[in-house]
Structures are given as C-alpha cells and as structure tokens.
C-alpha cells in the first residue's frame, strides 16, 4: 500500500503550467501562416469530440505531455462535445489544414456516425487524413451474475429456447457496443430485444447489475472492475487472443464466433489537405509517443491497449475495413436515422 502522495512543489508548478496551457488555448486561435519546414512553431490543438473525463479525453490527456515533448510544442487538448461527437468532428474537418489542428477520432465518430446520421456533412475518410491509431479497447460480453448462461455456447442455447424474451442493453442506438451485439446476434441467429440507454456505459451497466436487463457488450475498461468485483460476469471478449487483464475469459473466436472481433479505438487524424511532410512528422511523433512506458502502463491499467499504426496508409486501411464492417451491420438492422 502506497502512502498518500505528498504535494510536491513540482506538482504545484505543473498545475500552474497547465493553467497556462488552458490560457494558451485562446492564444492559439490567432496564428500566422507558417512554413512547413519549421513545423511545428506554435501550439497544436487536438480536438476531442467528447467531454472531459470520457475515454477519448483519457487517451488525449495521456498522449498530450509526451507528444508535446517530442514535437517541442505544446499540444492543447480542446474538448468540443455534442451530437455523438459530430460537433467536434465537423469543427476539425473545417479547420485550416496546416497541422495545427488535429482530431482525435474514434470508432463511433469515424466508422459509425456517417452511416447513422444521414445529415452529417463530414465524410471522415475524405475529409481527414488518418495519422495513427493510439488506443484499442476490446469489447466484453457481460451479463448479470444470476443470468443462467455462463458462456457463449450456453447463451446461444438459452436464447434459442426463448426467442424474443431476452433483453440486452446498450449505451446507445448507434453505439459500437450495440453494433457488436447485433453482429453477434446475426452470426448466431438469435432473437433478442434491444434496450438502449444514454449517457455512456454507466447507466446501462447499472441496470445489468441490478438484473433489470440480462446482458450487454461494454468496453473492457468500463466492465473490468465490475467483473473482478463479482457484480457482473464476463461471457466473452472480442479479441483474437485472450486479454492479459482477464485471462480466464475466453474470446468470442474460441467459442465459435470468429466474426465477433471488434474494438473501440481512438486515433489521431488531420484535416484533408494537410501537407504530407507534416503528416509524416506527426506520424513519427505519435508512434514514438506510444512507446512511452508510462502511457502504456496507464492505458493497460484500465484495459486499454496502447497501439500505433505502422504507417498513415495502414491506419487508413484499418478505418476503411472497420467502416465497411459497421456500415454493413447498420444496413442490415436498419438503424439509420433520417
């Protein structure tokens, strides 16, 4: 047991420095045109399309200090939340493509929203240049501990015997966790009722804990503590190999559902039109930052895998494949909103 941390002078100073960084967010809005060669010569804004405290914000704030250090310029995290991340994404897509505005996209904003919200003006794959993935969070199939099935095989038998009677929760109609369940449901041929929640995984997971709804997919980071604490049981994990944090939980693949491999990822993108040398420089910096042991450790603690893309093109292909997969599921279930 570590004793309580004393407040060091350094911590106080870094607090002051951070307050300064907050102020600098304003300064960054009036910037002169700059040459590519000395890029970056002023603070870089990283737009996070979700509120502080969420999974995307978490990734951004972890990345920020190391990335600032590598690039030699302050990275300013700017939270612009609203409309399932579309507000921030729209803002980032329309920003000047000079490398001083970056976007922290995730599976929802980039691979799912374009197919859910037909009014969305942004076409992520055309309006952004992918730089690198930074975080990969597998999905976890959880259930109330009193729910009879203990693994995916038993679940399939149980639901098949009770078509249309088992309820599953999700953190939202267009959420990746809902689509993961829909994809699995189709693969296994199950008839279940979808009960959507809003406000993140918390309220939905609470109702699974309370036994009001039987099961749901969550990200490992939001489910792991409840599984370890015995309030929820895990039936499967949506990775190819088992995850080190939950070594006893079999993968969906081992249980006969190889298509149930999915991830809630976060990655850095730049507005389309950003010069290639800047993209390359940013890619190298992100890859370097993701090697940082502190970042890897902190992400690992909460069930997030720290990753990076071998090349920007590689990340683009990854997004493309992800988008194809989810748009297919959305088309099949008709979750589109007009």
């Amino acid at each position, binding site marked *: 047991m570590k004793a309580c941390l004393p407040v060091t002078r350094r911590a106080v100073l870094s607090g002051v420095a951070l307050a300064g960084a*907050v102020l600098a967010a304003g300064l960054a809005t009036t910037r002169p045109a700059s040459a590519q060669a000395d890029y970056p010569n002023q603070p870089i804004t990283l737009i996070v399309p979700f509120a502080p405290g969420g999974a995307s914000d978490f990734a951004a704030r972890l990345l920020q200090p190391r990335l600032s250090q590598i690039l030699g310029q302050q990275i300013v995290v700017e939270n612009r939340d609203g409309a399932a991340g579309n507000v921030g994404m729209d803002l980032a897509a329309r920003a000047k493509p000079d490398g001083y505005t970056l976007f922290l996209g995730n599976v929802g904003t980039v691979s799912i929203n374009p197919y859910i919200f037909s009014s969305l003006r942004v076409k992520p794959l055309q309006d952004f240049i992918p730089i690198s993935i930074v975080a990969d969070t597998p999905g976890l199939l959880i259930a109330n501990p009193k729910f009879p099935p203990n693994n995916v095989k038993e679940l399939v038998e149980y639901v098949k015997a009770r078509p249309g009677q088992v309820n599953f929760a999700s953190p939202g109609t267009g959420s990746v966790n809902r689509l993961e369940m829909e994809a699995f449901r189709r693969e296994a041929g199950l008839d279940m009722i979808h009960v959507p929640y809003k406000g993140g995984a918390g309220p939905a997971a*609470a109702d699974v804990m309370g036994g009001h709804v039987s099961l749901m997919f969550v990200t490992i980071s939001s489910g792991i503590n409840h599984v370890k604490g015995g309030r929820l049981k895990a039936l499967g994990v949506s990775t190819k190999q088992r995850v080190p944090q939950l070594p006893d939980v079999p993968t969906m693949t081992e249980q006969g559902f190889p298509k149930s491999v999915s991830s809630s990822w976060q990655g850095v993108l730049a507005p389309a039109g950003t010069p290639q040398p800047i993209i390359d420089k940013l890619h190298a910096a992100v890859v370097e930052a993701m090697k940082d042991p502190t970042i890897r450790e902190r992400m690992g603690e909460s069930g997030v895998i720290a990753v990076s893309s071998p090349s920007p093109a590689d990340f683009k292909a990854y997004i493309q494949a992800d988008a194809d997969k989810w748009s297919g599921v959305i088309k099949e279930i008709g979750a589109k909103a007009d």
Partner: protein
Amino acid sequence: MELFNDLLLGFSVALTPANLLYGFLGVLLGTVIGVLPGLGPVATISILLPVTFALPAPAALIMLAGIYYGAQYGGSTTAILVNLPGESSSVVTAIDGYQMARKGQAGLALATAALCSFIAGTLATLVIAVAAPALAEVALDFGPADYFSLMLFGLVAAVILAHGSVVKAIGMILVGILLGTIGIDANTSLERYTFGIPAFGDGIDFAVIAMGMFGIGETISNLGQSEGGRSFVKEVHGLWPRWADIKRFIKPALRGTFLGGCLGLLPGGGPVLASFSTYALEKKLSKTPGEFGKGAIEGVAGPEAANNAAAQTAFIPMLTLGLPSSAVMALMIGALMMQGLSPGPQLMNQRPDLFWGLIASMWLGNLMLVVLNLPLVGIWVKLLSVPYRMLYPAIMLFCCIGVYSINNNALDVMLAAIFGGFGYLMKRLHCEPAPLLLGFILGPMIEETLRRALLISHGDPMVFLQRPISLSFLVLTVLLLVVLIAPMIRVTRQRAFEESTD
C-alpha cells in the same frame, strides 16, 4: 471504532496545508464561475477539470469537490440575488429566495442557504461514511419502471410549486416536456423538432431556457414597472439569521436533508427532484402556505438543504460501484481515471487513503464554502444597492457571457433572448416559469424510463403495478393528485353555489 479510524485517516490526508489550499482554491474558483449565470457545476467542472490533472490524486479530488460545491452554491447566490437559477437544482431556490431579496432579506436568504447547505452536507457526509455500500445496493434495485413512477410523482409534485392556477401549471409542465423532446431521440437516433439545425441535436441547454425565462423575462417586467424599474427594497434588514429565523428553518432543513439524501442516490434528476419535492412538502406542512412564493424562509432552507444533501449522496454509487449517476459524477470518474484510479468497490480497499480522504474533503469543502461565503454575503447584498439602472445591464452582460460559454455557441444566446420574450409574455398570462423548467428537466427522463420499462416488459403495462417500488410511487402520485384537486372542486362548488344564490 473502525469508522473513527477511517475518518481519522481521511482527515490526515485531507488536512495537509497544501490540500486545504487546493480545497479553498476550488471553492473560490467554483463560486466565481458558478456565479456567472448559466454556468452550473457541470460546465464549471468541465472548464476547470484539466487544471487538476497535474495535481496528485488527493489534491485533485479535494479541489474538484471544492469546485463542485462552490459552483452549486454560486448558482444559488444568483438565484437569490437576481432571480437567475444558475443550475437546475436552484430553480426552486429562486422562487422564494428572490422574493426574500426583494423584501430586503437578501442577506438572510443567502446566509440561510449557506447554513442549510452546510448542515445537509455534514449529515450527508456522515451517511456516506457509515452506510455508503449498503445504500448503493438500494440504488441498483431501482429499475426503469420504478424510475418512471418516481418521475411521474415528481411531475405532479411540481404543480405545487405554482401559486396560481393548477391547470396553467400542468400546461406549463407539458410545454416544458415538449421542449425537452427537441433533439436526437435516444432510442431511434431520429431528430425531433430540430428544424435541421445541427446544434439542436443535443436539445436545448437547460441554462438557455432558465436564463431566458427567469433572468431576461424578469428584467423586462422590472423595466416596465412604473417606479423607474427599481424593484428592490432599499433598506436591507436582517443580514444574519436571528434565533427566531433559525428555529423556523432548522426543521425544513432537516427534512430537506433526509429527502435529498434519499433522492440523491438515484441517477439523473436527484438534486432537482429533491429540491422541489422538499419545497412541495414544506408548503403542504406549513401553517401559512400562502407565504410560499412570496419570500418564505422555509422555501429557501428546505430545498437548499435537499439539493446539497443530494449532491453529496450522489457520490455513493460512484464511489462504491463506479457508476456515475449524473454528468458531474461522470466527470469525477474521468478525473479519477486520469489519476490512474478506477472508481468502484476496489477503490475503498486499494486506496483507503483516497476514499476516506475524499469523504473528509467533502466535509471540508462544505466547511470552506461557509467560511468563504458568509463573509461574502455582505458584499453580495451591497451589490443590490447599486442603482437598478446600472445593475440590470450588468446582469444582462453576465447572462450573455454565461450562456455563450456553455457551448461557445452564439445560437444559445439568441435562443435565450427569445425565451426571455416568451417568459415575459407567459408571465403576463399568469403562467409561471418554474413548472415549465421542471417539466423540461424531468420530461426526457420520463420518456426514457417509460419506453425502457415497456421494452423490458415487452409491452406489458402491468410492470408499473407489479414492482413494489413503482407501485408505492404510483399510489403516492394518486394521493397527491387527490390533495391537489380536492380544493379545486371545493372552490368550483362554492362558486357554483354562490352563483345559484345570486
């Protein structure tokens, strides 16, 4: 004895000079931003959260707790002084608090609010220390059907807030609910009443409507009044509560603490439901219900105690289960994660220093709130002696800054202006804004829980009667309706009788 040792550990963490300083800084910053109309705890914490990331965990949490209480109290301050409820739970405080201020009792109202918050905060913190894990289980037992019935009960109770016509109050609640449906429907992702405007996707912000209908609407009617717009009593009396005042507000404060403490455990509308159900209760218990709405001290004491107690017990599901019951708690979880801590059952065992430190700092945050704000009461009251012709342009400017800062969206400011005109016209029609705001807050939750409950029961409405918790609230709702409608029938009969004898 174990509790004593735990609390001792907590205070040993919280009571370092540096932590106290951070706590004080948090309360100060929270109050200053929270006083800006429109910026409630969620917006204030969002703005200040990044500042705490660089601090060590105990200091960060203590500072955040301070910001939270400060922002909440800041909202009550503007509600009382200038009829601007900065956040949803101070809507009720505005009703009688502002009337007290107009009678020259602004100081008394502010001091009462601070003291009652402190009493509630102290008791609720003690409850968390003693019974947090057990209470968290209760929160899990609440299913969607139970929430629906509770919210329905809350809406009916909202009618009591109005001091005019019951039919108009119900109508205003429905208008509020209708306004609450604006935005993307959570169940189908369909946009409702957004008129193709992307910014409407998340609905209208509460503060936009509150600023418009309360602040701007009130200012328009003040300006229209003949005595040059000055609507405050010049001589200020009773800056501090006297013994007689304390005797009047202590019981409402305790009842409010109890109700608030219970409702705070539930996600979503905890503090709001708490503040106005306490108001309704006090109005019903009072020997002089006619005073409510005209500056009754009980109408400030009860709701202020209730919303502070609820704000406190809202920490329970987060601390013990890692489940956020409100946007503020979600921010707190984010802050914990940045410190490398996962909130939940393990927190208490893995980092007892933090768990108990947080509880101790909650109480210290409350204490500092009183320490900071009681001396400020005098200054706030002095502000009211600024001539109204100079005060109201300042209020309008603060409103604009506050509303703009919520989302950095100019459209919000323009909407607030429109709601200002709407609020003024509705006031001329003798329709009050408070029921509308409560309908606006509770409406989306009612719809959500209704649809969810029926999805889960596969369309069987009996689910509302089969679940004991839900059934109890429905019975209470029916009783409340009878209490509300009975006098109406009596009056109508009296009228009919009078007419027939004419």
